């Protein structure tokens, strides 16, 4: 067995087993070396790290239990009544728009350091490691802006339909909100989600590896209704162009089939309230199953046409480089994918014993049919429970029991959608797409649970 060149430093768990804190420091040169080595394909430089982890001396297992019986006849949290049991609480409407508990302040969306040079053409990642169920709280929804975000006055926002229509139309927000509305749950995932991991591990946690993913209930008007009101020529009109009202005026081509089937929505509602400004207030397009860039924010115009547009985000970005030097263009569907969110990278399990492995699965082609989970790096699998609701092109929550024996384990999930598509592992994905695609990485994610309980983002090959 080879000795790992980057041995782990023990990390401290403030509650539970206490371990020595690392002397963490930022070494840019070192990080760049690793990225460069990974890019060169020299991933063998840490080959055998898992084997070494297995062979490593056992960490102290006799740490504090999570819920011991104290010596003094009982837990003081039970024996001594706390203030909230013995005093008067706060009045109603202390806060007209309530906020999460002050104890939840660690649950934040975050940028990934060094990913972008500016804060306006940038991205923040949703904290998937801390979320339950399938709905992303609106304030934690991931952000992707190309030229900064705006809080647009809805009374000054207009929506226009033009192109191959009998009468180009203009709508106010008041008018759009008078029309019959539908409400649907859908996931939205950036095409570049997990894009940093194509060649090698590049980020520590599920927030940074998979956090350009969110799921909301969206409320709005089917785009087809508005096109029909303008007298759309749906024989000649094969594509629509959606365009934003912000500085970047994002434009994307969308096939008419998604529109005529009533799936594409012109949405103003999100999780019971209006869209958040960072997510396109007051109007955005919802294109179920398709990458986030097509869900144009601050939507000002839809044009019906007979040819695709080849916009900047269809021919400079959001194109997938293949090993033969060709780029795949108009890759739009987010293929079937899943990830375990607990336990996940950067976390430390408190002790041996029972855990509920929990994660998210989704597919741009329909409903999730099945999710399997492995704790031995993909050798053996068990089928997880899918929690309801299981909806079309929506996040699906899965859970499965796991009694951790304290030995190193590699946790993976593998989703299958209703078309029978099975989520690939990295070897299968790279075999057809290489490692320079940037976009549409839907590979199986591996989390190495070390004996210390600390979880690491790893890739196997």
């Amino acid at each position, binding site marked *: 067995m080879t000795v790992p060149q980057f041995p782990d430093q023990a990390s401290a768990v403030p509650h539970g087993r206490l371990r020595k804190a690392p002397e963490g420091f930022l070494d840019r040169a070192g990080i760049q070396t690793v990225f460069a080595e990974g890019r060169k394909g020299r991933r063998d430089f840490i080959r055998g790290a898992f084997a070494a982890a297995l062979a490593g001396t056992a960490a102290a297992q006799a740490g504090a239990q999570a819920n011991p019986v104290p010596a003094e006849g009982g837990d003081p949290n039970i024996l001594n009544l706390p203030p909230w049991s013995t005093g008067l609480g706060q009045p109603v409407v202390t806060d007209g728009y309530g906020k999460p508990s002050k104890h939840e302040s660690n649950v934040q969306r975050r940028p990934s350091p060094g990913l972008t040079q500016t804060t306006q053409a940038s991205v923040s990642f949703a904290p998937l490691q801390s979320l339950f169920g399938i709905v992303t709280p609106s304030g934690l929804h991931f952000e992707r802006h190309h030229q900064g975000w705006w809080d647009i006055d809805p009374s000054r926002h207009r929506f226009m339909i033009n192109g191959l229509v009998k009468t180009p139309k203009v709508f106010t927000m008041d008018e759009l909100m008078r029309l019959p509305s539908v409400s649907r749950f859908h996931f939205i995932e950036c095409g570049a989600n997990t894009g940093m991991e194509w060649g090698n591990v590049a980020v520590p946690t599920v927030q940074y590896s998979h956090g350009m993913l969110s799921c909301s209930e969206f409320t709005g008007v089917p785009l087809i209704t508005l096109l*029909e*009101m303008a007298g759309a020529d749906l024989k000649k009109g094969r594509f629509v162009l959606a365009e934003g009202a912000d500085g970047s005026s994002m434009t994307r081509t969308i096939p008419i089939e998604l529109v005529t089937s009533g799936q594409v929505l012109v949405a103003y509602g999100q999780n019971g309230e209006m869209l958040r400004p960072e997510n396109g207030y007051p109007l955005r397009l919802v294109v179920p199953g398709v990458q986030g860039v097509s869900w144009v924010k601050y939507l000002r115009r839809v044009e019906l046409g007979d040819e695709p547009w080849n916009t900047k985000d269809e021919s400079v970005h959001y194109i997938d480089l293949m090993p033969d030097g060709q780029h795949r263009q108009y890759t739009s*569907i987010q293929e079937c994918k899943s990830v375990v969110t607990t336990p996940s990278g950067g976390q430390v399990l408190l002790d041996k014993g029972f855990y509920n492995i929990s994660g998210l699965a989704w597919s741009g082609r329909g409903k999730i049919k099945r999710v399997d989970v492995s704790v031995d790096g993909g050798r053996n*699998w068990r089928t997880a429970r899918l929690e309801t609701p299981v909806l079309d092109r929506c996040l699906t929550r899965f859970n499965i029991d796991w009694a951790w024996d304290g030995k190193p384990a590699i946790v993976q999930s593998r989703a299958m959608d209703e078309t029978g598509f099975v989520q690939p592992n990295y070897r299968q994905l790279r075999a057809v797409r290489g490692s320079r695609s940037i976009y549409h990485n839907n590979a199986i994610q591996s989390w190495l649970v070390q004996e210390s309980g600390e979880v690491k983002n790893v890739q196997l090959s």
Partner: protein
Amino acid sequence: MSSCRNAIAALLAAACVLPAAAQDRFPGIGRAATPAEVKAWDIDVRPDFKGLPTGSGSVDQGQDIWESKCASCHGVFGESNSVFNPLVGGTTKDDIKTGHVATLKRTDYPGRTTLMKVPTVSTLWDYINRAMPWNAPKSLKPDEVYAVTAYLLNLGDILPAGFTLSDKNIAEVQKLMPNRNGMTTQHAMWPGNEFGAGKVKPDTQAKACMSQCEVPQDVTSRLPAHADSAWGNLHDQNRLVGPQRGAVTVDAAKSGAAKPSAADPLAAAVALTQKNGCTACHGMTTKLVGPGFAEVAKKYAGQADYLAGKIVSGGEGVWGNVPMPAQTLSPDDAKAIAAWLAAGAKAP
């Protein structure tokens, strides 16, 4: 007789209404857009140049615009990677002949420039017109967009010096785009009936093996321990209750002290520099495109009024030959940032 006439009238009316039902289902909602309104917003340009305004601009004119409005982010030669990915580089004369950028096959080439990727000149024209300059989008006139596009293509050795690009010759220029043949739509990820849809199966055909599966077993990639702190203290990025905690990756005492409070005036000033896009070109202490805030603070200590003026007007020559464009921030923001700079540009 009259009832008969009414019946016929009703039938006629129905005949007129039926085909237009979709339009008339929602009376009082929406109105016809005026030609001026459509013209104001319908700015997209397609690969067949539908939507392209008439006009022209030369490489020389483009260079002047470039140096005043584009170079601060993209570099004088479109080569800069300090703010955005480089625009120019990686293409050859041979690529112009083949329409395939050969560099894209190389795995050792660092990064991809815009000219290595973009297949259509319409895309450049459309994007520059709708979204550039980054902090003043839609401010260029059509002739200026032609000029900037011409200069960019000249930087990539696609157009010669002295060339004037126009709506008349842009279709010929399209035939020179180095990666014009570099795109494929033969994949299963387009959700419509066009391209490879229906003909091409998903490219990964994984099977759901359940036991004793033949899979890779070696951990061959993970972050080195010294990279752990690059994302801050992961302990503070996980909930403090539940089945696990975040790993401590940064000394808690240090990370706790560094947290700026919302009421901190220094933090408020730094937030203004971020809100107004200053940080796209200025680092806190070090030079990015323009000088670091600390460098500015040192040179102009106490000169808040002068700095407020310079922020609004822009300038050139003091810190090198890359000009700072005039900024469109609010007077209050400019004053607040200038005051913070004049007082030393201290970090919160």
